[in-house]
């Protein structure tokens, strides 16, 4: 059974191995042992913290396979840009109507904005090749939101996820070349290195355009790159849009990659989460005919949060969920505890 659980200090070596897999963009796992350790320590401190309002907490979860291997990671930050401002380009559509000429059309413009500041941010989603496209990948992605269902005070009411944009084989970004380069006077990778992947730095205000960028004025390849994901992000994109995230409102200021966002009321995990009492499942011939559905089920503890997949009949009209002893063990829970269940 695969388990999603908070990262532990003992996972650092495994994470380092994972991070050696080449990944584009900046929204993935840190690359150096020190940075990985810092992230793990932040996560452990964050899970342990008593939080009043979301702030600089960062939560890192791992997907552990049956044989106790770390095969995936997923992170969530309580408040994006909490030590600054989180900048993004907002996709604006300007309606233009001329009475005299009896014509009307829309013009697309990108506006540097800080609207995502304070949203909770999902990031660093990665699963091994073997788990690609499996329910466990979905479990990992969703586990973060289940934690937010359990501990809503730790998060904003709104969430977003930046996904890496398209780059060419040399690591160049057509979107950057048309936009950021003119202000930063450096290559895309140099700029990302310089800024450390951050989107909350003062130098962004200093250098990035103060006025909306009219999209029709950008070269074709830059326009084509807007809102396009790097192929490696396709899995995350599909999982998140299925979850209820919307991709059309914001893009990344550097590479033009999509930023998915949603109010929690629009997310399936929030609207579909059911709190149920745990019962121990036995062979129940009278229920055997009911179709078995797949659920993600999480423990109800903020400080020992774990999620697994289980199968059981529809829970909507029930007060309890029958879990096998295996599952109860995996979640560190027992009969009578409360769990959160979401169809998956």
């Amino acid at each position, binding site marked *: 059974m695969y388990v999603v659980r908070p990262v532990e200090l003992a996972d650092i070596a495994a994470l380092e191995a994972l991070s050696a897999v080449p990944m584009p963009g900046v929204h993935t796992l840190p690359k150096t042992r020190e940075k990985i350790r810092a992230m793990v320590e932040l996560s452990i401190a964050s899970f342990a913290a008593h939080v009043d309002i979301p702030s600089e907490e960062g939560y890192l979860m791992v997907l552990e396979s049956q044989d106790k291997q770390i095969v995936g990671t997923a992170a969530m930050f309580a408040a994006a840009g909490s030590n600054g401002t989180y900048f993004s380009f907002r996709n604006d559509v300007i309606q*233009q109507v*001329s009475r005299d000429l009896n014509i009307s059309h829309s*013009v697309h413009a990108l506006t540097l904005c800080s609207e995502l500041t304070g949203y909770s941010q999902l990031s660093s989603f990665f699963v091994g090749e073997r788990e690609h496209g499996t329910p466990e990948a979905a479990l990992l992605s969703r586990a973060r939101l289940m934690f937010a269902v359990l501990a809503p005070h730790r998060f904003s009411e709104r969430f977003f996820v930046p996904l890496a944009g398209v780059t060419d084989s040399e690591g160049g970004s057509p979107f950057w070349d048309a936009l950021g380069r*003119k202000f930063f*006077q450096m290559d895309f990778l140099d700029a990302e290195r310089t800024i450390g992947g951050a989107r909350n730095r003062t*130098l962004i205000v*200093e*250098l990035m355009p103060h006025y909306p960028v009219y999209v029709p*004025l950008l070269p074709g390849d830059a326009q084509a790159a807007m809102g396009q994901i790097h192929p490696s992000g396709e899995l995350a994109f599909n999982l998140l849009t299925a979850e209820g995230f919307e991709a059309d409102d914001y893009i990344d200021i550097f590479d033009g990659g999509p930023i998915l966002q949603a109010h929690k009321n629009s997310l399936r995990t929030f609207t579909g989460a059911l709190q149920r009492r745990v019962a121990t499942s036995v062979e129940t011939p009278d229920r055997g005919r009911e179709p078995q559905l797949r659920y993600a089920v999480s423990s109800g503890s903020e400080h020992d949060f774990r999620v697994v997949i289980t199968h059981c009949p529809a829970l909507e009209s029930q007060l309890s969920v029958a879990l096998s002893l295996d599952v109860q063990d995996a979640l560190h829970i027992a009969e009578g505890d409360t769990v959160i269940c979401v169809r998956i």
Partner: protein
Amino acid sequence: MLVVRAIQDTDLDALYVMATQVGSGMTTLKPDMKMMGDRLNIAVASFAETIPPEQRDYMFVMEDTDSGRLAGVCAIKGSVGLTEPFYNYRIGTLVHSSRELDVFTRMDTLYLSNDLTGSTELCSLFLHPDYRTGNNGKLLSKCRFLFIAQFPHLFTEKLIAEMRGYQEESGRSPFYEGLGRHFFKMDFDHVDALTAVGKKSFIAELMPRQPLYVAYLPDDAQEVIGKVHTSTAPARRLLEQEGMYFEGYVDIFDAGPVLQARVSELRAMRDSTLADIGPATDGDSACAPESVVAEPMLVSNTTLKDFRMILSQAMPVNGIVALPEAEQQLLHCRSGDTVRTLTLNPRKNNG
């Protein structure tokens, strides 16, 4: 002989004939009897001072007195943009700098503006090809500065002239293709024709309102900002001689430059002088600096309603100018009358 004079009611037919000979680039003088008649009425009322200064439109024609034929036309509009908004792009500078990264980027920007609203405008200059020789072009263009110097109280302090922007030989406007087309979605000629007939509110409706970084435009569009059409370059030089400068305003469609001046700083305001028509005496020219001897002079009468101007070889000395009899007649003047004079070409400071 050629005289430039205030237009009159009776000039309409001759004006129409001439307008049929204007190329497509001049939008202000279409061969349309109705429009032209309306404009001529305003011009006549302007010289007669029967309409307020800001509504006036002083039109001047160059007449060949030998044939009675009109050789050219030009005009001064009292104020632009007071009934329909008058749009330009203004070129500004924004600096983006970060000490942390040691980056200092100086960016040109285009601001959609109505800043020139209310300015006095020089416009509608046209000289018939048969007369494009010698100093005729200068006489026609510069007559307006002498007029302004004679009647400065009729004008605002800000004087402008819009210059036709750069086009390729094919007629393609790189600036329009790089910017306007994305928002207007129609051909340049079509837009040009719409503005000519006064359909201008679409500019407010369709133009991007937010300041634009020039760096977003294609290179060929960037390069022609403030550049005049090849055929307009000589006209530009004449205006620059009189103290008009490109100060960063350009046409929103073709990025042609707007030349500007403060009326009080015009060469004509500083250097033109009044002189009485009188007999020449040998001694008078003793103190005149050598360099200006025999330079052609613009000479006008000082009458608003019957303003007339010629080019003369007569030099004013100590407030007296000895105009030949024929020239006095062209100006509708006689001995003892006061005329305004200005050298046709600017003199250099010898410092």
